[in-house]
């Protein structure tokens, strides 16, 4: 006769298996979260490890004799500025004969292509410098910059690196003479784009992005709030308002590249607005941001308790007086939070800007919303496509700048939400 199994026995027998299952589920969940964290960590680590070196820039400090034979006052701003710099380098380097053209070119290539223009601007601003010796600090060119930052290893075989032994020896000599310094790279923020990585900066992209965001804000903020107030407070509940509502929800999910197609065909093709202009970029971003702002504003308006509306209506206020005098001011913190988050999204948006041509190569900062410009994300895209080694670290640095802006904007939004928003 077999002993009768009670329910308790059966439960107890299965308990181990059931607990194992629970631990498995728990572990998978934790693993999933850790995977996401690890990816985020890898993202930031790789950006910082490649990008940090672009925040400093190798400079050479030279005693430059502004030779009156090469640079004549009556011919300014023309003159042999590159020859003067080569001569200055030659004085700093022992044992390098500058007689041959090829040697002169090799020595000159230590300095950035922009060095001669820096000297030219200084002499052109003050022609009395001609004939004097001045101290000039100029950026070195990209290969030497990489060498100084350790990205080119002198121990690798000569054929596999961009600088041969002689070139490294020249640079070491300059280093030994204390002429090489690596100050903070303000050029990253105050220079416009350039073909040469050591000169390329984000100024044009920052100004372009700023114009686009201003245009985007000026259009999407009033339109978004107006539409949200209409839908939430004033619209009659009928088919038409349902249609608009469905339409706005759909617009929020339309792929961004489709907005680019819209802008290309309507703004540029039909209205004849200029290509690559931040105005067009801002208008496109505004159309994309509007649904976000409408949805956030509606949520903020909904959160204002009905008692406030009823009290105001009871005192004889009209519907609009209720909205503009009471509901809207109370909902404002929520609206602003949503707007800032929407603008942060717009700042990071790339694809539609590519389609309207905001990825042009432009070496000067835009002087208005109608002149050609790039934006921060499109600049990142351009640099990411450039083969020069120096652009890889500059891309990471530009991304860090972009992320810095996004984090600041989101932090402001969170601050606003926590400080100003009222719970009812």
């Amino acid at each position, binding site marked *: 006769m077999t002993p009768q199994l009670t329910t308790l026995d059966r439960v107890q027998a299965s308990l181990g298996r059931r607990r194992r299952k629970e631990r498995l589920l728990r572990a998978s969940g*934790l693993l999933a979260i850790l995977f996401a964290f690890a990816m985020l960590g890898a993202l930031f680590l790789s950006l910082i490890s490649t990008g940090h070196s672009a925040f400093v820039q190798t400079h050479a400090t030279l005693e430059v004799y502004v030779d009156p034979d090469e640079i004549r006052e009556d011919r300014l701003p023309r003159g042999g500025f590159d020859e003067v710099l080569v001569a200055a380098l030659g004085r700093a380097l022992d044992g390098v004969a500058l007689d041959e053209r090829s040697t002169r070119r090799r020595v000159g290539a230590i300095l950035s292509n922009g060095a001669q223009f820096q000297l030219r601007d200084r002499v052109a601003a003050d022609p009395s410098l001609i004939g004097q010796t001045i101290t000039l600090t100029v950026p070195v060119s990209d290969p030497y910059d990489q060498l100084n930052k350790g990205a080119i290893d002198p121990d690798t075989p000569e054929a596999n690196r961009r600088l041969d032994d002689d070139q490294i020896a020249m640079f070491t000599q300059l280093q030994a003479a204390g002429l090489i310094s690596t100050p903070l790279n303000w050029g990253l923020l105050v220079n416009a784009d350039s073909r040469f990585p050591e000169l390329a900066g984000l100024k044009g992209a920052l100004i372009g992005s700023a114009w686009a965001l201003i245009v985007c804000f000026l259009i999407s903020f009033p339109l978004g709030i*107006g539409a949200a107030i209409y839908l939430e407070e004033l619209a009659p509940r009928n088919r038409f308002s349902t249609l608009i509502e469905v339409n706005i929800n759909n*617009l929020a*999910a339309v792929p961004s590249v489709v907005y680019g197609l819209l802008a290309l065909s309507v703004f540029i093709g039909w209205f004849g607005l200029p290509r690559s202009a931040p105005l067009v970029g801002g208008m496109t971003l505004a159309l994309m941001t509007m649904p976000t702002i409408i949805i956030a504003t509606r949520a903020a308006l909904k959160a204002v308790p009905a008692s406030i509306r009823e009290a105001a209506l009871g005192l004889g206020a009209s519907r609009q007086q209720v909205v503009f005098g009471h509901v809207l001011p109370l909902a404002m913190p929520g609206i602003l939070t949503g707007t800032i988050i929407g603008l942060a999204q717009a700042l990071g948006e790339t694809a539609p800007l590519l389609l309207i041509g905001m990825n042009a190569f432009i070496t000067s900062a835009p002087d208005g919303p109608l002149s050609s410009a790039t934006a921060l994300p499109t600049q990142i895209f351009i640099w990411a496509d450039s083969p020069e080694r120096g652009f890889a670290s500059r891309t990471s640095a530009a991304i860090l700048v972009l992320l810095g802006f996004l984090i600041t904007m989101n932090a402001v939004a969170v601050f606003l939400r926590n400080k100003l928003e009222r719970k009812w």
Partner: protein
Amino acid sequence: MTLLPFVLLLVGAMLAYAVNHRAAASLRSGGARLHSSPQYHGLFAALTVLTSALLLALVWLALDDVIIDHLIRRSLPPPDGDAASAGAMDLVMAEIHSLARGQTFGTPEPWKQKAADRLTAFRTGSAVALLVSLTCLSIGVLTLRRRRFTPELRARQGSERLTHAVMFACCAVALLTTAGIVAALLFETAKFLQKVPLSEFLFGLNWEPQIPIREDQVAASGAFGWTPVLVGTLVVTVVALVVAVPTGLFAAIYLNEFAHRRFKRVAKPVLEVLAGVPTVVYGFFAILVISPAMRRLGDALGLDVAPNSALAAGLVMGVMLIPFITSFADDALSAVPQALRDGALALGSTRAETMLKVLFPAALPGIVGGVLLAVSRAIGETMIVVMAAGLIARLTLNPLDSVTTVTVQIVTLLIGDTAFDNPKTLAAFALGTMLFLVTLMINILAIRVVQKYRETYD
């Protein structure tokens, strides 16, 4: 210069406010009874000036370039014989435009220079005419408002009607955006279908959107069959979902059921950071870290991984979608009534059983909706694949190979200078139409699923 009309209309509105406010205030201080308080009289006048002038300025600015362009084209001498094609005309117009900007290359022919001068003159004329007509309109409306002003005027109702109309117009912009998208896509797609038959586009197995530069060129009549592009998009999307869906769901289950409250308070914002990273950054991450890592892994395993494999692009896209799915699933799980959870636990089920057998099925519609929205995002995602996936359309299901996607093709076809009349650029719009339709259907389906299958407990 473009800003000046807007400054003018602001000044006009302020003036209108001041004039009518003053008039109303002085009447009231004279002892008259007004229907509306003075600020409403001012507001009403300002709003009428503002709306009418804004309407004029916007219509004017939208149309003046088109009209001027048309006038210049009509005034040009008709090009001789074969050169009369639209392309040649566009070229001449582009030249005239750059001449008007002061960019001369060589010596332009006199008639072109003349056309450019005329263009500049038209533009200046248009700008001046706009300013003059704005001023006239503002003054006209202002005097009208001032003349119509009486103590009985229902100025508050008037201004509220106007505000109502303005806010309605704001809503209309949202509708117009959709209409604009549909119109632009359909218009260009129709032009594309005149050059390439629909059956070839939908069922063709080759996608080689080169166009011959010369008539007699070998090799290139171009092929516009979107099948390989579609397959590539699906491969990348499937890889992304294989990464994102399990990870996102397990993360949501853990956060919802098992996580300590303190852990949750840290983990949710961190996941949101992942959602806030711009896609161009993910694209760079893919080419900087993931693609090389995939290749090394492939080498170690003896597999041949393409440098821009679908796997790398899909993996990074999956990472981008994780927070999206997690937050949808977390919301859906939290929306299940507490009673169900309590009931299941009271019957002796473990927390895992409660989750998998009670909460998860109850939240399934919301979760499916979220996953569908993630699918539509993955299909429409652009920058990651532009940077990390390939450009050549290859008909393959192998994720280790390089594939291209719809969005990649749209961007590569349209980057750089584009004319609107060749099948290459029009093909981008045809792809855009398909993309719009597919994502729209998935979005509608997602909303339907959520609404229809949501169990109501209360």
